[in-house]
C-alpha cells in the first residue's frame, strides 16, 4: 500500500468518525451474532448463547476502545480534549493568561528584534562569491593601525605579491550629478578595473569594466547601482549607452549591478566609475586615500598573505625612505572590515535580549507553578479517577504549548514592528554605512528562530508542573498538601531570581534615567546661538565657474541678496567651513605677534563669515566690533575670536587690538577686532575649541553655508531657499537644508544619546515588568503554600492587617535587597557610563532616589494582589481543604 493510501486511511479515520464508528459497531455486532449462532447450533438457548458470546468477547466497549486506540483516535481525541480544557482553563484566568502571554511575547519580541539585526549583519553571508577568501588590505603607521593605501604603493603591491589572485582598490567619492532640474549631489565610488571580478560580482545588465578601463586614456564609463537604475532610470533596459554628467564630465553607462550587491565601505554608492589616477594625491606615494580588497590565492592562508604584504612593505620602506618610513601593511578578512564594527554591539545586545527571554520564560514557569499548586486537588481527583500520569502531563504540556504559541505569535508580530523602531534609532548617515541592514524584517530565519524559541519555551513551561506530577509526594495530594523539597527549591531559587531581576531593573532604570537627563541637558545646552526660527543650508558651487575669489564673493553676495528678499526673512549670514554644530572644520596655525615664537604650532579652528553672520545667529558681541562690509580684500586683515580663544591665548589681557600672524611665508598679519560668545561649532557634547573668525570677503570659497533668520515659521523656508539658489544657477547644489532645531535634534551626539536612552530605557521597562511579575509569582506561590498557616492565624483571631503585614514583610525583604544591590551596581555602572553622560554626575542622588521609588512602588503593587488574597482566606475553607 502506498503512503498516499495510508494517509487517506488515517484521514478517513479522523474525519469520517461517525461512519467508521458505525462500521466498527457493525463488524463487532456481526461477530457477536455469528458467535451466538454457533452457540445455538451447539445446543444452547438463545439467551444462554448471547450471554456466552458476550462473555467470550469479554467487554464489547473495551474492544471498541482498543480498536480506536489502534487507529490512533485517542491520541487526537485526547489532544482535542486537552486543548479545549486548556483554553477553558486559560479563559477562566484572564489575568494569569494575559500576563503570561504578554511576558513571553515581550521576551520573544526583544530577542527576535535583535536577532533580526544579528541575522542581517552576521549570519547572512556577504553577497560576494566565496566571501571567506576576500581580504581587506591596509597600510599601517604609528597613528593608524589600519590606514589607507597610496596609489603608487598599490601598484607595487599588486605587482610584487604572490598571495593574491587579484588585488584592487576603491574609495568613496561624492559627485555633482547634472539633471534637467539642476545639479544634484550623488554618491559614488572609484574602483580599479578588476574590482567587481575580485568580489565575484557580474552586472545584471551590460558589462563589467574592461581590464585597462581605469587608465586615464580610456573613455569615461560608469556602472549603476541597482537602486539608482530603478529610481533614476525606472529600470529601463535602454539605459546602456546613455551618458550621465558627473562633476561636469560625461560618463557612458555600461552596466547595472545586481540588486543584492552592497559594499558597506562606500555606503550607498550610485555611480561606480573606474579609478583614473589623476591629480596630485593619486600620484604621490605619501598621499594615502585608497582602500584595498583582494582575493587570496587558493591554499594561501591569511597569515601567509599577511607575511607577504608585510615583506613588500619592508622592501618599499627601504626603496622609498622619504615617503614610506614606518609604513607597514596588514590584512583582515573583508567581512571583518564590513561588519567588524557592529559585531560586539550586536553580541552584547543579543546576550541582553536572550537573558531577558530566559528570565521571562522562568517567570512564566513560576506563575504556572503557582497555578499547579492551586490545582493540586483537581490533579489528585483526576488521578484517582484513573487519569494516567501521561494524560496529566499531556494536559499541562498542552497548556504550556498554548501559552508559548500565543506568546510566540504575539512576539513575532510585535518584533516586526520593533525592528522598524530599532532601525529608526540609527541615524540615516550611519544607516548608509550599514547597507546590509536594508530590507531588515521578519525573514525565514527569524521566523524559524521564533518558532524554535516558542518550542523551547513550551518545554520549559511544561516542565515544573510535570515534575510535580511525577514526584511521588503528589500521590498524597488528596490527604494533605505536599511540602516537599521541590517547592522549597523553587521558593529559594525564585526569591534569588527576583532579587536579581529587581537589581537588574534598578541598574537599567538608573542608566535610562541618567541618559534621559543627559539628553535633556544636551538638547538645552547653550549654543551661543538663538536656535528658533533659524535655517541653515550648504551651497556647493562648481569650482570651474566660481573658483576664483571675486566669483565666489559675487556669488555669496547674490545669494544673500536674493534670500533677503524672501518673505519673512530678517537677516542672512554666510559662513565657510560649516555652520554651527557642523564640526570643527579646518584649522589654521598661527602665533601671536610680539611674543617670543620658536616655530611651535597653535592650532585654531577657522571660520570665514560675512558681516551679518553673528547678528543673524544672535551671538553676543563681548568686546570690539562685528565685521563690516568694508572688511574686504583691499582692507587690512582683521579677525574676530571667540571667548575660548581669548581665554586661552589672552587670559589676562584684552584680545582686541592684538595681532596674530600665520605660519606661512610671508606671514599674514591679522588684527583682532572683536570677541564673541562661544558658538557650539562641533558636537553638542564636545568642549568648545578656540575659533578664529575671518571676513568671508578676505578669504572666500565656492562652497559655503547660509544661515537665515526669519520672523515666520522656519520650516517652509527650507525648500524655498533651495529653489532660490537653483534659480541663480542650476549647476549649484543646495545641500542639507534644515532648521537649527532639527539640526540640534538630529545632530550625531543627540542621536547617540537619544538612541542609547531609548535602548536602555526599553530594556529597563522590560526588566522592571519582569521583576514585578517575578515578584508576584514568588509571593503568590508562597501565599498558596501558606494558606493553611494563614487560615489558622485568622481562625485564631489575626486581623487582615497583620496578614497583610506578614506577606508584605516577606516581599519587602526581597524588594529592599533587590534595590540595595541595584543601587550599588547602578553607581558602578554609571561610573562606567561616565564617558557618555553629559552634564549629569554618575552619582546622581535624585535619579537614584526616583528610580528606587518607582521600583519599590511597582513591586509593592505587585505584592498587594497575593497579599489581599491571603487576607481574604476563609479559615474554614482553607482548613477543610487541606
Amino acid at each position, binding site marked *: *500500500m502506498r503512503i498516499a*493510501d*495510508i494517509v487517506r*486511511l*488515517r484521514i478517513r*479515520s479522523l474525519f469520517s468518525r461517525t461512519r467508521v464508528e458505525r*462500521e466498527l459497531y*457493525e*463488524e*463487532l455486532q*456481526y*461477530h457477536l*451474532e*455469528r*458467535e451466538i*449462532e454457533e452457540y445455538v447450533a451447539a445446543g444452547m438457548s438463545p439467551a444462554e448463547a448471547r450471554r456466552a458470546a458476550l462473555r*467470550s*468477547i*469479554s*467487554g464489547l466497549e*473495551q*474492544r471498541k476502545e*482498543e*480498536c480506536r*486506540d*489502534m*487507529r*490512533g483516535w485517542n491520541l487526537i481525541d485526547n489532544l482535542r480534549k486537552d486543548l479545549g480544557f486548556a483554553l477553558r482553563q486559560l479563559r477562566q484566568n484572564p489575568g494569569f493568561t494575559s500576563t503570561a502571554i504578554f511576558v513571553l511575547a515581550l521576551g520573544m519580541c526583544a530577542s527576535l528584534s535583535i536577532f533580526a539585526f544579528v541575522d542581517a549583519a552576521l549570519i547572512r553571508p556577504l553577497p560576494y562569491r566565496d566571501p571567506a577568501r576576500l581580504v581587506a588590505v591596509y597600510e599601517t603607521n604609528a597613528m593608524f593601525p589600519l590606514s589607507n593605501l597610496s596609489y603608487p604603493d598599490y601598484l607595487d603591491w599588486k605587482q610584487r605579491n604572490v598571495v593574491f589572485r587579484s588585488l584592487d582598490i576603491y574609495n568613496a567619492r561624492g559627485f555633482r550629478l547634472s539633471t534637467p532640474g539642476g545639479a544634484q549631489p550623488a554618491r559614488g565610488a572609484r574602483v580599479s578595473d578588476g574590482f567587481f571580478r575580485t568580489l565575484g560580482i557580474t552586472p545584471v545588465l551590460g558589462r563589467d569594466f574592461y581590464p585597462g578601463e581605469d587608465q586615464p586614456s580610456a573613455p569615461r564609463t560608469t556602472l549603476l547601482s541597482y537602486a539608482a537604475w530603478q529610481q533614476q532610470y525606472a529600470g529601463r533596459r535602454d539605459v546602456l549607452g546613455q551618458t550621465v554628467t558627473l562633476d561636469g564630465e560625461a560618463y557612458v553607462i555600461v552596466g547595472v549591478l545586481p540588486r543584492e550587491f552592497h559594499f558597506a565601505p562606500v555606503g550607498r554608492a550610485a555611480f561606480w566609475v573606474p579609478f583614473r589616477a589623476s591629480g596630485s594625491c593619486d600620484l604621490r606615494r605619501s598621499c594615502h586615500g585608497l582602500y584595498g580588497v583582494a582575493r587570496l590565492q587558493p591554499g594561501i592562508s591569511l597569515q601567509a598573505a599577511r607575511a607577504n604584504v608585510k615583506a613588500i612593505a619592508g622592501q618599499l620602506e627601504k626603496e622609498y625612505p622619504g615617503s614610506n618610513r614606518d609604513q607597514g601593511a596588514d590584512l583582515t578578512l573583508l567581512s571583518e572590515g564590513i561588519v567588524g564594527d557592529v559585531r560586539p554591539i550586536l553580541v552584547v545586545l543579543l546576550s541582553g535580549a536572550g537573558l531577558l527571554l530566559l528570565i521571562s520564560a522562568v517567570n512564566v514557569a513560576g506563575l504556572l507553578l503557582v497555578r499547579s499548586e492551586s490545582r493540586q486537588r483537581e490533579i489528585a481527583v483526576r488521578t484517582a479517577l484513573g487519569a494516567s500520569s501521561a494524560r496529566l502531563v499531556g494536559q499541562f504540556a498542552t497548556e504550556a504549548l498554548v501559552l508559548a504559541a500565543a506568546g510566540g505569535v504575539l512576539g513575532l508580530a510585535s518584533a516586526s514592528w520593533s525592528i522598524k523602531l530599532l532601525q529608526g534609532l540609527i541615524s540615516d548617515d550611519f544607516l548608509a554605512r550599514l547597507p546590509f541592514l536594508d530590507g531588515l524584517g521578519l525573514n525565514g530565519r527569524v521566523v524559524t528562530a521564533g518558532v524554535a524559541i516558542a518550542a523551547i519555551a513550551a518545554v520549559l513551561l511544561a516542565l515544573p508542573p510535570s515534575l510535580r506530577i511525577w514526584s511521588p509526594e503528589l500521590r498524597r495530594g488528596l490527604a494533605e498538601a505536599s511540602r516537599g523539597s521541590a517547592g522549597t527549591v523553587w521558593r529559594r531559587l525564585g526569591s534569588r531570581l527576583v532579587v536579581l531581576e529587581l537589581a537588574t531593573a534598578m541598574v537599567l532604570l538608573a542608566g535610562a534615567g541618567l541618559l534621559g537627563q543627559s539628553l535633556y541637558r544636551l538638547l538645552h545646552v547653550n549654543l551661543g546661538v538663538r536656535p528658533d526660527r533659524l535655517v541653515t543650508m550648504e551651497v556647493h558651487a562648481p569650482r570651474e565657474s566660481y573658483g576664483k575669489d571675486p566669483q565666489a564673493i559675487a556669488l555669496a553676495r547674490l545669494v544673500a541678496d536674493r534670500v533677503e528678499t524672501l518673505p519673512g526673512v530678517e537677516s542672512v549670514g554666510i559662513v565657510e567651513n560649516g555652520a554651527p554644530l557642523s564640526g570643527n572644520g579646518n584649522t589654521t596655525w598661527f602665533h601671536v605677534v610680539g611674543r617670543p615664537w620658536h616655530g611651535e604650532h597653535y592650532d585654531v579652528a577657522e571660520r570665514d563669515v560675512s558681516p551679518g553672520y553673528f547678528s543673524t545667529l544672535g551671538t553676543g558681541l563681548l568686546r570690539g566690533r562685528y565685521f563690516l562690509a568694508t572688511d574686504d580684500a583691499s582692507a587690512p586683515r582683521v579677525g574676530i575670536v571667540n571667548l575660548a580663544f581669548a581665554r586661552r591665548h589672552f587670559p589676562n589681557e584684552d584680545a582686541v587690538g592684538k595681532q596674530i600672524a600665520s605660519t606661512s611665508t610671508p606671514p599674514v598679519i591679522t588684527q583682532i577686532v572683536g570677541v564673541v560668545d562661544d558658538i557650539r561649532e562641533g558636537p553638542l557634547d564636545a568642549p568648545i575649541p578656540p575659533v578664529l573668525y575671518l571676513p568671508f570677503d578676505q578669504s572666500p570659497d565656492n562652497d559655503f553655508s547660509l544661515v537665515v533668520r526669519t520672523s515666520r515659521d522656519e520650516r517652509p523656508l527650507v525648500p524655498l531657499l533651495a529653489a532660490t539658489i537653483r534659480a541663480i544657477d542650476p549647476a549649484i547644489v543646495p545641500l542639507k537644508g534644515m532648521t537649527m532645531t532639527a539640526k540640534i535634534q538630529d545632530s550625531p551626539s543627540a542621536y547617540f544619546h537619544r538612541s542609547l536612552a531609548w535602548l536602555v530605557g526599553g530594556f529597563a521597562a522590560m526588566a522592571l515588568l519582569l521583576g514585578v511579575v517575578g515578584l508576584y509569582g514568588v509571593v503568590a506561590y508562597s501565599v498558596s503554600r501558606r494558606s493553611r498557616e494563614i487560615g489558622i492565624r485568622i481562625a485564631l483571631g489575626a486581623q487582615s492587617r497583620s496578614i497583610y503585614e506578614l506577606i508584605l514583610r516577606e516581599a519587602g525583604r526581597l524588594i529592599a535587597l533587590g534595590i540595595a544591590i541595584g543601587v550599588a551596581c547602578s553607581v558602578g555602572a554609571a561610573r562606567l557610563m561616565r564617558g557618555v553622560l553629559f552634564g549629569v554626575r554618575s552619582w546622581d542622588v535624585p535619579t537614584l532616589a526616583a528610580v528606587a521609588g518607582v521600583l519599590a512602588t511597582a513591586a509593592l503593587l505587585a505584592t498587594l494582589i497575593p497579599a489581599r488574597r491571603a487576607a481574604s482566606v476563609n479559615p474554614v475553607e482553607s482548613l477543610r481543604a487541606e
Partner: protein
Amino acid sequence: MQGTLDLLILKVIALEPMHGWAIARRIRQMSGDVLQVGQGALYPSLHKLEQNGWIRAEWAASESNRRAKYYTLTKAGRKALEHEAAQWERLAGAISLIVRTA
C-alpha cells in the same frame, strides 16, 4: 507471543479474503483447536494491520447473506507476511534447537 497473531492473520487471509469471525475460526481449525484466538485480541490486531496498510477491508455479503467486513492482503501485506514468516522460521528453529539439545 507478540506479533504472532499478526503473522497468523496475514497467513490465513493470504489464501482468500475473510471476515473477522471466519479468521478466528480458520486459525482454530488449522491449528487443530490448539490456538484459540481471543476475540479481544483479534479485532484490535485487524485494525492495526489495516492502519499499517498490510490488509484492506471491504464490505461484502457473507456466506449467510449478511453484510460482513472482509479483509484482503495487500501487496505490502504480502511482503510483510514473507518477512514475518521467515522471522518466525528462524526463531522457531532456534528455539527447537535449544530445546532438543538441552
